């Protein structure tokens, strides 16, 4: 049942579909209004290299799917298909029931927040200008923009008005990443995509940011897709974990199942974490 959210497990639609063998979710994932993002047999080939191979999954509203895998597993490629920075070579990607290729790419991206590891804050814009970028492009009235900037700074834990007028180069790495998250959330998108969002931070700051982000995410109830190679991050943030390897989704786990999974790759990831436990045990 790849892609079926737990809340739907017993819904009438689900039961109905599961009784129809030809509509088995392996061949055609059932559409439901709760499904926000859906991949159907997606392949992506770039100069004869197959970066994604028959990837199918779906993400339900309010869920946080973590794509976990090593570098080159195709996580970022998959992520970029959701906001149509890439288009599948074959197969379909649907956002809110509509093919990404049918969406106007600008309209699609404006409703999807996007956070990348290198953040990409505009160096010539102040913090306030960076955060308000999309609201201003969407021509919100000035006072609403200003209120929104303050609200977002609060949300990501940057208190005090002094931040608004600073430039990115005057901030620490953690603060910059907070501004990046604030910018992605500013236009109140339904979907948030994050590519190694906390990857460039030191471990302490990263841990703090993960916990804070988790609280924010619970509060806002966005549909989130996060790409990471950090198991700890996957377990802290994900409501489901999609394990990727060599352009394929190996399996999608709940965090609980992932911890106890017998699959060798999941077990290998867990073994990494156990190193810490053992170190703790020796003390």
């Amino acid at each position, binding site marked *: 049942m790849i892609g079926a959210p737990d809340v739907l497990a017993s819904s009438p639609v689900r039961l109905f579909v599961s009784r129809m063998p030809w509509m088995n979710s392996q061949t055609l994932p059932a559409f439901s209004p709760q499904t926000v993002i859906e991949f159907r047999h997606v392949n992506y080939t770039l100069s004869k290299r197959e970066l994604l191979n028959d990837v199918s999954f779906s993400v339900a509203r309010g869920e946080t799917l973590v794509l976990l895998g090593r570098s080159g597993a195709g996580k970022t490629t998959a992520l970029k298909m959701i906001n149509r920075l890439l288009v599948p070579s074959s197969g379909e990607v649907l956002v809110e029931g509509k093919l990404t290729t049918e969406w106007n790419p600008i*309209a699609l*991206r404006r409703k999807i927040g996007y956070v*990348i590891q*290198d953040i990409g*804050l*505009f*160096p010539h814009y102040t913090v306030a200008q960076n955060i308000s*970028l999309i609201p201003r492009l969407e021509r919100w009235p000035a006072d609403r923009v200003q209120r929104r900037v303050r609200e977002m700074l609060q949300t990501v834990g940057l208190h005090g008005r002094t931040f608004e007028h600073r430039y990115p180069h005057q901030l620490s790495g953690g603060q910059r990443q907070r501004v990046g998250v604030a910018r992605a959330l500013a236009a109140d998108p339904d979907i948030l*995509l994050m590519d190694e969002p906390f990857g460039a931070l030191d471990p302490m700051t990263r841990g703090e940011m993960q916990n804070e982000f988790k609280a924010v995410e619970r509060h806002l109830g966005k549909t989130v897709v996060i790409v990471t190679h950090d198991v700890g991050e996957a377990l802290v943030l994900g409501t489901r974990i999609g394990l990727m390897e060599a352009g394929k989704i190996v399996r999608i786990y709940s965090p609980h199942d992932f911890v106890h999974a017998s699959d060798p790759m999941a077990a290998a990831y867990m073994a990494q974490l156990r190193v810490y436990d053992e170190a703790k045990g020796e003390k």
Partner: protein
Amino acid sequence: MSPIEFFLRHHREILQATLEHVWLVGLTMIFAIAIGVPLGILVTRKPWLSKPILGGANIAETIPSLALFGFLLPVPWLGGRADRLAIAALTLYALLPIIRNTSAGISGVDRAVREAARGMGMTDRQILFQVELPLSFSTMLAGIRIAAVLTIGIATIAAAVGAGGLGEFIFRGLAMVNDQLILAGAIPAALLALVADSVLGVLERRLRPVR
């Protein structure tokens, strides 16, 4: 007669020639920027055009200036008036640094910044005008600065085809073996170049994006 006395006695003519010179260089720069900046942007958008455009500008750069003035002489509309001819030739020289620096400035914009801009739903036009151009102003200006200094120097040769300017004194001085006449053209031209260089240099530093 000392050079200073000479300058004082002929200050009117020298000023007149300097103004002509500034006029030639100013118009050249306006044309070169109006043509060079869009070409520089085009090169970053259509990489396959980069070779022909930069190659063409490179070739123009290698033609000896006196020869270029000569080449353009038979061109119908241009050959008709010396100042048109001079400005056309000078513009060709000024193009290369402007095109090259515009494209270098835009390509130099941080990949993450461009990706974030695109991923957040900025249109190509918005990315160009709100992100790429503001972030490459200082590099573009460095190219304009090189072009301006270059043009001030080469513009003296425009006097050979009768376009006026400070080169007038230099050519006359050479013909009459009169050092003071040569200096009357060379010194103001050098000063003009220095002034243009420092003014544009200050602007360039002021526009340099913070990192």
